[in-house]
């Protein structure tokens, strides 16, 4: 599956739907999507990893930096992921305690306090 990030806005929340495998080759594209969304005025982000079949430390690096950027800007970041294979690396690195991870995009949006 080709790597792709679909960006859309739901009120002031930027929603990034990520598809494919996040690794050393594709992580810069995810980073660019985060930067683009934040520069477009969103400091609250939901990064949906439901369609991600694989992620390694390259992806973690981008997400940790996105978490810091959103917090520094007074916003927040939530992840959507229900795939054990992808959740495993969050647990191994201790990052499952650092990120807010929801099983569905709906839960993430409602936890973020979306108006819709």
């Amino acid at each position, binding site marked *: 599956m080709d790597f792709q990030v679909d960006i859309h806005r739901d009120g002031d929340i930027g929603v990034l739907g990520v598809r494919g495998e996040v690794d050393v*080759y594709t992580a810069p594209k995810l980073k660019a999507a985060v930067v683009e969304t934040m520069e477009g005025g969103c400091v609250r982000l939901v990064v949906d990893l439901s369609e991600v079949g694989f992620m*390694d430390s390259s992806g973690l690096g981008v997400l940790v930096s996105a978490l810091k950027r959103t917090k520094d800007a007074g916003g927040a970041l939530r992840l959507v992921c229900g795939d054990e294979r992808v959740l495993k690396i969050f647990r191994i690195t201790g990052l499952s305690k650092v990120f807010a991870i929801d099983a569905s995009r709906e839960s993430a949006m409602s936890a973020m306090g979306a108006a819709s």
Partner: protein
Amino acid sequence: MTEAVALAIPAAPQYVALARLAAAEIALKSGFDEAAAEDVRLAVSEACTSILRHARGSGGLMRLQFRPDGDALAVEVHLPAERADLDGALSDAASEEERFGFATLEHLADDFEMIEAEGGDVVVRFTWRGLG
């Protein structure tokens, strides 16, 4: 699969996915179950990525070796000396990402090391024991 397998792929980010595919397939063929093969896939991705963090310029190949031995599997990834950029100790993870990568390899594999081999090649090696 009980024979050793060697693979040479361009030392560039877009080929790490190919190394992952091969790693998972070799693990399955060596008798690993799907969860263990998934671990091998992740570890090989981290190993190739760690190697590429210490590469300079472009071109050249990185070499992967998979050696099944009973219910163990030994993996080595080599970056040739002419592509290596050895600033500081290899085992000192410089960036946060690299620390995550090393933590993942240390967790998944029974032993893991990243060294400068004789001749200046950068080598990542790790083993699984008692699986398969």
